[in-house]
């Protein structure tokens, strides 16, 4: 009897101990081969991190939202505003004007669409005001934001007070965003004899909306531009890239002071 009792006791102690162990370390820790490939090397970049977070991601959806309707509305508005698409010519607007009217009459009985068109029909009445609003939406994208949240509104106020602080550094993400924009714009001098010697530096100034206002080759490279046809072609390709990529997108408006002037070094070092 005793031996049976002591055996069951020892079982009980043993199993309890196991239970405690499992509770303390968890099951996976007891399983022998379940170790993660943990010893990873973490690469750490020491970067100047700006206090203001990157506004760009939240910018985009707003642009898209605003863009989609503005395309729809802009057609009827155009005739009154005389906006960009000059080539689209007079015939289109003429057709467009009657259409909203015709449609708005049967509209009330119909779907949500007519509502939009009603709005459009209303807009032309205070013509210039609506047109101005539209222009503002398109030109100054951050402004819609001011309506949405107060903090960025403040930021915008300071921004509109112009070059406000040169010392806010651009974050790595922002620089990368600029770099990536040039990939489709820049045709590299592939197959040149010594592409690594063809790095061209372009100095440019940008408007608050990212539009390239001036762009020229760094003055110390002007001599080579005149004498070396390979370099001249490479420098021209860099200048074309700058013009083609204008306006640069996603630049944080509050850091205008730090990106208003840029020097881009077009260096085909990754080329074979």
């Amino acid at each position, binding site marked *: 009897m005793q031996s049976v009792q002591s055996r069951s006791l020892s079982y009980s102690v043993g199993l309890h101990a196991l239970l405690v162990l499992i509770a303390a370390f968890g099951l996976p820790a007891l399983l022998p081969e379940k170790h993660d490939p943990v010893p990873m090397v973490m690469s750490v970049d020491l970067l100047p991190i700006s206090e203001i977070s990157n506004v760009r991601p939240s910018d985009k959806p707003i642009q898209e939202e605003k863009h989609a309707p503005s395309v729809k509305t802009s057609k009827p508005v155009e005739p009154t505003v005389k906006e960009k698409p000059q080539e689209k010519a007079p015939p289109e607007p003429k057709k467009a004007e009657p259409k909203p009217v015709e449609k708005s009459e049967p509209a009330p009985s119909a779907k949500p669409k007519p509502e939009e068109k009603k709005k459009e029909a209303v807009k032309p009445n205070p013509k210039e005001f609506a047109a101005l609003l539209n222009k503002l939406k398109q030109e100054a994208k951050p402004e819609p934001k001011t309506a949405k949240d107060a903090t960025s509104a403040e930021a915008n106020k300071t921004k509109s007070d112009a070059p406000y602080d040169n010392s806010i550094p651009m974050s790595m993400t922002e620089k990368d965003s600029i770099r990536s924009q040039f990939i489709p714009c820049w045709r590299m001098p592939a197959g040149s004899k010594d592409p690594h010697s063809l790095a061209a530096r372009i100095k440019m100034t940008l408007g608050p909306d990212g539009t390239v206002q001036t762009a020229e080759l760094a003055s110390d490279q002007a001599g080579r531009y005149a004498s070396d046809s390979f370099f001249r072609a490479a420098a*021209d390709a860099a200048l074309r890239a700058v013009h083609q990529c204008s306006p640069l997108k996603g630049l944080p408006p509050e850091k205008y002071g730090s990106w208003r002037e840029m020097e881009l*070094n077009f260096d085909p070092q990754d080329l074979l």
Partner: protein
Amino acid sequence: MRAHFLLTMLTTMLVATAANAELKIDITKGNVEPMPIAITTLTGQGNSNADGERITSVIAADLERSGLFRPISNQAFIEQVSNGDAVIRFADWRQINAQAVVTGTITPLGGDKVRVSFRLWDALGEQQIAGKEYNTFGRNWRRVSHLIADEIYKRLTGENGYFDTRIVYVAESGPAKNRVKRLAIMDQDGENHKYLTDGGSLVLTPRFSPNTQEILYMSYSGNQPRVFLRDLQTGREESLGRFNGMSFAPRFNHDGSRMLMSIASGGTTSIYEMDLRSRSMRRLTNANGVIDTSPSYAPDGHAIVFNSDRGGSQQLYTMDGSGGNIQRISFGTGNYSTPVWSPRGDLIAFTKQYGGQFYIGIMRADGSGERLLTQSWLDEGPSWAPNGRVLIFGREFPGGSSGNRARLYSVDITGYNLREVMTPIDASDPAWSPLLPM
């Protein structure tokens, strides 16, 4: 006093750099897509031989074939250019993504003479970046088109063009057992094709002289295969001597004053240099029982690349102009042959055979940086375009009972833009001419 001055300078410089603290970004990635270019039809009346439309289409075809440009269809043009001398509406061209725009005029000058002019515009930089005019006979319209394409290519890539050139090659016909091989010549775009020999004797490895007026080649005429020199203007053919053995693989030096060739005799093939004025010969390699062949000069003539089996397998070697300082430069697996030094001097192109396949490849002159550009059942005999950017070579396809099919192909040294160079019949052994003299 001087110290004070220096201090002031230093302070000024420091202040200047501080004020100039603009954002600096390195752009190291771009694309290698062809550049969209709009080539408008030359305005004005030409004459019966030359008209704007034909010239424009040749320019567009040249640029397109280079793989570096993408001519935009004229149906997309917004601005219809009516005066080829006037400034274009840059915004209209940017709208259709044209980076460069070509305009021009053609004016009859009486008789068959015409004046052809062109202007190259940078649509993004909004300025004219090149322009030229040519007074010529209308019948030269093709040549003028190639010259204009060369100018455009040069201005936009920095590199000389290669459109005003010709290609000489071996045209093949007939069954494999009784193959007829004739020398043929054509413009680089396949136009103006003509045969130089009648096919009475087998010919191989034609090579252009630097002035493009002569070719060297090997012919089997008169029992012993040997090297001949042919004047393209007169059609006169002369043997460069009978030697104690077969002479082959000829090639000019950079100024046409000398040539290299191989002479095979008693199991040994050696490389010789001949002075073409005095016809005096100099032996450059001399290794018993070894085959040294396919010699090619560096553009400055101070070095020679050739292939040799002196190390056991066929590999590439370089030596100086007098045959000294022989060094092996190819170390990859497989056999290397037909090396050709680039006219730019930086690269050597070659044929490589490995694992039952043939490759056209390039390596730096010291043998480093080997890159294979093409691969097929049989690729061989590369020849450089005069700007050292494009290679032409022969490719054969197994044809079964009907015999193999042989064609010419070109490829860019980036490995892109592999294209067939159209020939009327089977073709092999192409050689690209230097730019034609004006």
